[in-house]
Every structure is written in structure tokens, then in C-alpha cells.
């Protein structure tokens, strides 16, 4: 089994168009949540989201390419480009033939489908755009990354709601660790801010009309976000040999299913995924200093997640720092695991733990150290990123600081 390094990351989110914007915002506790620029915002019961601002698709892609690229695919491509550039990947014919692309997305290109259905149902047309299917398919992100770089090894997409990209990254990690592939581009992207999708979330009654306040007693639900994040994973030895600079190591992956309720999470199920990630990583609970929580800011998640962390870590939970960066970049659904994996990698690399922003009042049922509002300078040995999806599908990733390797 090989050790696996993260040698590059890319992010586009409400916190900025690149990794640097993301890092700066997380470390200064800046929140990217604000009024949506959705054309039909007046017909929605909530007005705020974590939208990507200052992004001009035409500046990044040719008109010819954009015909094929739904917004979630654009995010996937931009994040992959930044990650691959940072990693300084030296493409050889063999690497292209063997490398993997594993992405996650929950909603995929449903906004492309919505545009087609509007033509049918609203505008009385009897046909939809011929690119509706290729734009809409959830694997379009993985496909376009593979096409752009000529990556011909295993390529696929995982869709497990809010755990999608954590499951994707975990599987990519296992592919690299086992020696099945020499490199993986992995992460996820999501563009869920289209009218029909927003209406569906409205009906779930879990979206805040205010902002995202995870673990805070006066929280009022989640805030949807859009964006994408990708990581380059490769064997640590190979990375060092070619002079790449590892940002952190990815060391463990745990999965579980609640086998309970379609929307209510179970602390037992989540705790089993945490324990499984620690076991896979060969980490003792005491080695973990930080958890990037799923932390959606629904009462159901925050209380259950707190209980699951206490259950998995026992006494050590008292000494853990736990934050939800969704308080800043929103809940990006199928991209959440990827954005938060990057946040975790940056926390390990820089020795700065991102805060839980918008925190006001403690909730006795969420009594962990949630790093309220202000980032903390603290170097930790290992960190986890939690993702718990509707449907009871849990994925937890474990990372270790390269500084102490």
C-alpha cells in the first residue's frame, strides 16, 4: 500500500474564483452568503444563497465549448485546472492512459434539463435543445476533465446526495493507495441555484431565511451554495521524486449507511463512518485535532453530528476543534465533500483552523469546541472531513499533516 499525497487543489466557490480566495476567506472568517441573483427570487420563501460572484463563463470558455458545458461542469473544469496546475502534473502518455478521474455531484446538470422543460411546459414548444442530455448528465464533469487532459484510466461519477464528492475522493484515494492508478483527479461540483431545484429545497423546509449558523442555538437551517473543488492525489514517493510539494496526506476513508430513515440522520451511522475512517487510516482518536464537520445548521444534523463525534471519540471529543465551513461557503450538496476536503487540507498545511462563522449563541446539545467566528492558529497532526447525506449515506475522509510526516 502506498502513502498518498495531495499535491494540488482547485476551488471555485462563493468565497472566490480560486484557491487563494477560498483560503483567505476561511482564515479570516469571511462569509460568502448573500441575496441571490436568481431571476425568480420573489417567488421563493428564502432569498439568500452562497453564489459564485464575478464569474464570467465567456471569459473562461469559448462559445463553442459552452454549448456542451452546464454550470456544474464549468466549475468542475475550472477547479481541476487549478489543481492540476498547482500540482505541476507532468503528463506522459503512460500517465494519461492510467490516471483516474472520480467526481461527485448530487444534482448534476438538472438546470439544463429545467431549461428544456421550460420550453416544453411553459413556452409551448415541442422540442428541447439537442445538448440537454450531454449537458445534464451527472458524469459530464468527469467526462470533460478526462477529455480535456486526455486522461484515459478509470473515470466515473458518484452521486450520493451531500456525500457525493467525499465518496468520490475516498474511492480515488483507495485507487491510488492500492497501486491501481498512478494519479487521480478527484472532487466534485454543483450548481443547484435554479428555480425548480430551489423550489424543491424550499419544500423540504430546511433552508434558512437568514444565514447559516451551524451549532448555534438560534440557527434556522441551511444555506444552499454552488461551486466546485478538485484535488490531485498521487503516491507520496512519486510526488517527492518529481519535486512536487505535498500539501497534506490523505490517509483514511470510512463509509457507512444508517439503514434507517430517508432524511433523519443517525448518530450511530455517522459514528461508524468516523471509526471506519480512523481504522482505515491507522489513526488513534487522540491523533486527530480538527474535524471539518458536515455542520449544515439544521437542528437535526448539528445535534446528531455532535452526538456522533462524542460517540466515536469519547473523552478526546473535549480536546477536538470542530468547525463547519458551510457557514461561509454554504451547503454545496454534491460538491460539499470536496470543498470541505480542501478546507481541511489547507488547515493542515497552514496550521490555521477555519472557524464556524455566524455563531451567536451556544446550543447545549452542540457543546463541542466549534471555533466560533475566529480562525485559530493551531497545527494539528491529523484532521477529518465529515459528510452525511440524505438517505443515510455517510463518508468520512482522514488527512494527515505533511509537516510531521
Amino acid at each position, binding site marked *: 500500500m502506498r502513502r498518498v499525497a495531495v499535491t494540488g487543489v482547485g476551488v471555485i466557490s462563493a468565497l472566490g474564483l480560486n484557491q487563494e480566495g477560498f483560503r483567505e476567506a476561511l482564515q479570516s472568517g469571511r462569509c460568502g452568503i448573500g441575496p441571490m441573483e436568481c431571476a425568480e427570487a420573489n417567488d421563493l420563501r428564502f432569498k439568500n444563497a452562497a453564489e459564485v460572484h464575478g464569474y464570467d463563463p465567456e471569459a473562461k470558455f469559448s462559445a463553442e465549448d459552452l454549448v456542451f458545458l452546464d454550470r456544474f461542469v464549468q466549475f468542475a473544469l475550472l477547479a481541476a485546472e487549478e489543481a492540476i496546475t498547482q500540482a505541476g502534473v507532468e503528463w506522459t502518455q503512460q500517465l494519461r492512459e492510467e490516471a483516474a478521474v472520480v467526481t461527485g455531484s448530487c444534482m448534476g446538470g438538472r438546470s439544463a434539463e429545467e431549461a428544456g422543460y421550460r420550453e416544453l411546459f411553459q413556452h409551448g414548444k415541442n422540442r428541447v435543445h439537442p445538448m440537454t442530455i450531454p449537458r445534464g448528465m451527472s458524469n459530464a464533469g468527469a467526462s470533460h476533465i478526462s477529455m480535456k487532459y486526455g486522461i484515459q484510466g478509470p473515470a466515473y461519477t458518484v452521486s450520493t446526495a451531500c456525500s457525493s464528492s467525499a465518496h468520490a475522493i475516498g474511492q480515488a484515494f483507495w485507487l491510488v493507495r492500492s497501486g491501481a492508478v498512478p494519479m487521480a483527479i478527484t472532487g466534485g461540483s454543483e450548481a443547484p441555484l435554479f428555480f425548480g431545484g430551489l423550489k424543491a429545497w424550499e419544500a423540504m423546509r430546511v433552508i434558512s431565511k437568514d444565514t447559516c449558523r451551524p451549532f448555534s442555538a438560534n440557527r434556522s437551517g441551511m444555506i444552499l451554495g454552488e461551486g466546485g473543488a478538485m484535488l490531485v492525489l498521487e503516491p507520496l514517493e512519486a510526488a517527492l521524486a518529481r519535486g512536487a510539494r505535498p500539501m497534506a496526506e490523505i490517509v483514511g476513508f470510512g463509509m457507512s449507511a444508517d439503514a434507517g430513515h430517508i*432524511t433523519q440522520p443517525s448518530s450511530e451511522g455517522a459514528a461508524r463512518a468516523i471509526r471506519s475512517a480512523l481504522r482505515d487510516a491507522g489513526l488513534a482518536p487522540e491523533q486527530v485535532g480538527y474535524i471539518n464537520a458536515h455542520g449544515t445548521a439544521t437542528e437535526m444534523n448539528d445535534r446528531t453530528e455532535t452526538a456522533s463525534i462524542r460517540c466515536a471519540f469519547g473523552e478526546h471529543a473535549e480536546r477536538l476543534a470542530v468547525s463547519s465551513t458551510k457557514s461561509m461557503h454554504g451547503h454545496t450538496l454534491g460538491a460539499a465533500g470536496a470543498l470541505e476536503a480542501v478546507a481541511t487540507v489547507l488547515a493542515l498545511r497552514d496550521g490555521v483552523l477555519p472557524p464556524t462563522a455566524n455563531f451567536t449563541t451556544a446550543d447545549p446539545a452542540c457543546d463541542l469546541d466549534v471555533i466560533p467566528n475566529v480562525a485559530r492558529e493551531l497545527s494539528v497532526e491529523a484532521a477529518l472531513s465529515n459528510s452525511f447525506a440524505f438517505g443515510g449515506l455517510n463518508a468520512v475522509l482522514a488527512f494527515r499533516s505533511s509537516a510531521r510526516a
Partner: protein
Amino acid sequence: MSETIQERIFRVISTSARIPLTAVAPERTFDELGIDSLDRLNILFDLESEFAIEIDDNEARKATHIRDIVSGIQQLVGAAGTPAPGR
């Protein structure tokens, strides 16, 4: 005789949550009736259709007993006049 608002609410809850109409009473809690968070979503959705109203998420979250729903709906319907059922 036409249904009262309370009777209409009880009928919607009974139908939506698939529980006997006789089990639905003001003093009962959702938990006692085995109504979980998804059943609540369906009930709220059906009540909004029945009375052509919009029920606020935060207000809905506070309701623990059937009577909380009845008083909340009575206020909303009072504020909106008396719309036809199923509008």
C-alpha cells in the same frame, strides 16, 4: 353542515399521515401519533393546499401538539379571509 376549520385540519392530518380520524385530537402530540419529520412536511404541504395559505417554516417547527397547528392555521385563515377549499 359544512366542516369547521378544525375538522378540515383533522381530516387533512388523518389522510396525509394515514392515521384514523378518531386518533387526531388537539391535545395529542405529533410524536404520540407517530408523525415524523417527513410526515410533517407532507401534512404542511397538504394544509397549504387545503387552505390556500403559506405556512412559515419557523412557525411550523415550533408546533409540538395538534392544537398548535389548529391555532396557527386559524390565524392564517383569519388573516387571509376564508378561501375555498383545495384552491
